[in-house]
């Protein structure tokens, strides 16, 4: 993997093209290395997914980035400001939800935001109402937070981010506790924030949501970033899956395996009760699919359905992480 680093060495003089930039970032908890030499580059103005299995170190990296805990090694910058040296400048334009958003339960949503606005610039107070309206809880703004559902707290967490008019939003599992309609709203809001030129870093285990929302992703496993880049580029390198529904799956499997297609590197054929699953190498063309159909028909096997399945982020994620698991 190669990364195009910004050429400027003076981060203060010229704005960095990266919203988040880390080099060799490491965080240990005793013997456990939660974040292991992470090299992460998040371009400005995009939705960036940060994916990883449970315990991969996603939240720890976010906590380090935000100064909630200190790093043991490495360098990082947010919006071009080196952290922790210029932490106050960097965080002035950052909004974040880390873990489950929790607030003072005895205060209303609006009062909680007033506390946070007081810690920000004066204009933040004027943004409380619009932020609450944008996340759809303005009508409950004067209710105590202890009466809020989990989903409403998530929305309040996003509103807390928005009062700072952030250029960078770091959202840790923002879909947690949201119903399908709420997830749809959140997705639309993230996209609208990106459309406004903001950068959104979305940490999630909901791969489908990330795929729908984000332009680029980084996959983290065991504290290290193992892949990162635009989703389209990452998926372009994945295998193609052909699903075949036919009258005699076992014989069909044997027929395909006997051809040059079945014997090619990266190809595999698996039988299932309704048909076959044919995995083909990345870059396989349409003619190969036609050839498979021809072989089956000439072998007097009735083909009921032949469908190319688009490689998804989920299948790619599982592929990457399972391969890692095998290697270790």
């Amino acid at each position, binding site marked *: 993997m*190669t990364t195009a680093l910004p050429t400027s060495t003076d981060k203060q003089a010229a704005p960095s093209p990266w919203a988040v930039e880390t080099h060799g970032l490491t965080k240990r908890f005793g013997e456990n290395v939660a974040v292991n030499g992470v090299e992460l580059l998040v*371009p400005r103005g*995009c939705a960036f997914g940060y994916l990883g299995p449970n315990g991969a170190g996603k939240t720890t990296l976010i906590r380090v980035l935000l100064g909630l805990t200190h790093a043991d090694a490495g360098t990082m910058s947010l919006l071009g400001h080196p952290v922790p040296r210029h932490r*106050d400048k960097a*965080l002035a334009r950052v909004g974040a939800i880390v873990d489950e958003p929790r607030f003072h339960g*005895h205060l209303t949503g609006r009062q909680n935001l007033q*506390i946070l606005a007081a810690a920000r610039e004066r204009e933040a107070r004027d943004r409380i109402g619009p932020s609450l309206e944008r996340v759809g809880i303005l009508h409950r703004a004067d209710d105590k937070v202890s009466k809020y559902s989990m989903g409403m707290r998530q929305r309040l967490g996003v509103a*807390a981010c928005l009062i700072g008019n952030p250029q960078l939003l770091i959202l840790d599992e923002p879909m947690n506790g949201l119903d399908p309609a709420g997830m749809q709203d959140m997705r639309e809001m993230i996209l609208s924030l990106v459309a406004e030129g903001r950068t959104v870093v979305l940490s999630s285990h909901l791969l489908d949501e990330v795929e729908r929302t984000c332009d680029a992703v980084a996959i983290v496993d065991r504290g290290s970033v193992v892949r990162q880049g635009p989703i389209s580029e990452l998926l372009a390198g994945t295998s193609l899956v052909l699903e075949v529904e036919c009258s005699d799956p076992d014989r069909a499997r044997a027929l395909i395996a006997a051809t040059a297609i079945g014997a090619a590197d990266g190809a595999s054929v698996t039988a299932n009760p309704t048909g076959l699953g044919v995995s083909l190498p990345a870059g396989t063309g349409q003619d190969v699919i036609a050839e498979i159909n021809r072989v089956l028909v000439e072998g007097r096997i009735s083909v009921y359905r032949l469908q190319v399945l688009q490689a998804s982020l989920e299948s790619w994620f599982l592929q990457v992480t399972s391969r890692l698991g095998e290697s270790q």
Partner: protein
Amino acid sequence: MTIRPSAVGSAPAPVLLGEPVGVTPDHRGSWIPSGALIATRFMELRKRRGLMVTLTLVTVGIPTVFMVIRLLLHAFAPKSYGPAGGYDIYTALISGVLYVFGFIVAATLGATAGSADLTEGMFRHLVVTGRSRLALYMARIPAGLAIILPLVAVGFTVVCAVCVFAAPTQLQFNGVNVPANLSSAGLEAWAADHADEVICNFGIRIGPSTPNGSTIGAVVNNVLCGNGPGGGPAIVKQPPGSQGQPLPSQPSQVQITEAARLIATMNYADYARQFLYPSNSLMIKSGLWLELEAVIGFIVGLGLGSLIGQRTVAVVLMIVLEVVLTPILSRVRIAHLSNLQRAVVGLATAHLAPGGLPVFGGGGGGPGGGGGNPALLPESTTVAVCVIVAWLVCWSVLGAWRMMTRDA
């Protein structure tokens, strides 16, 4: 694989924003808290209904209920129950109730202010704003003091009001009802009119150097004191020829009066320290002393709460310090540890108690108050002030340090 900032999917062209235009500089990295930060901290504490009710009940409710009960008892059974107010009640309430409870409630508020953000998950949101953690800590001090100081003041005002307005109308001095606030001459004149009671009740110590000792002795040694009409001792007159042995030389009324005047003069110094109600000076001094105690309780509670990150443990520790350790360490004299004992903040504040206030439930304050209380471990005022300042600074530094280094 290459990541370029301008080539990520369908994202719009990157917006390279510098510092936003039109945003007021907010000195976010400064350790000095802004007014808005303090105001919202105040609101956060004030809105804790359970805590505020408890604080109010303890600082205002307890003395108020105590006073109301005494007022009612005195109103319905004046012979059995004395007046609700007065100097003695004042000193008992100030040094026995408000002093101890004021410290505890202030410590409770401080521990809450020091730990609530952490336990309720708000600390993380605040840190993410980029605001200096030290400023976040410092904002709690004026916010908390703005709550606890008025509360203590209200409780103290209730005590003062009742003690002044429901004070006894006559002073009990050596078991005799004496008008209060008499001058030396006034007391002599009163003594002349109440010679029997003075001679038989007032303290008399006649030594070789006692002025007019022979005059007083001639009278005192030649009168018999029995139960007077008011229940107290009074001179029993024995006319010549009556039953019993007549006294060898019964003093004349003039001698008795003169002796009473002299005895009154001898007792004036003690009498002058007896009051119907607390003086303005004492009330001002003890009010400030109580507020000092509340400030200490709050600052120490804040530091401890922030250090531990938990309210309950911090409050329990503060109660143990105030109710158990301080009284013991202030009275027990442990060889080789006396300097360590002097470092207890409760002892230091006891030594700063205004004159006339007994501390730690006994001993009588005397002119020096806590400082003059012989039961307390001796400590100079300078040392006491240094101990208090050291406690305030140390706990503030510890609390702030923990807040600045804690994982959020």
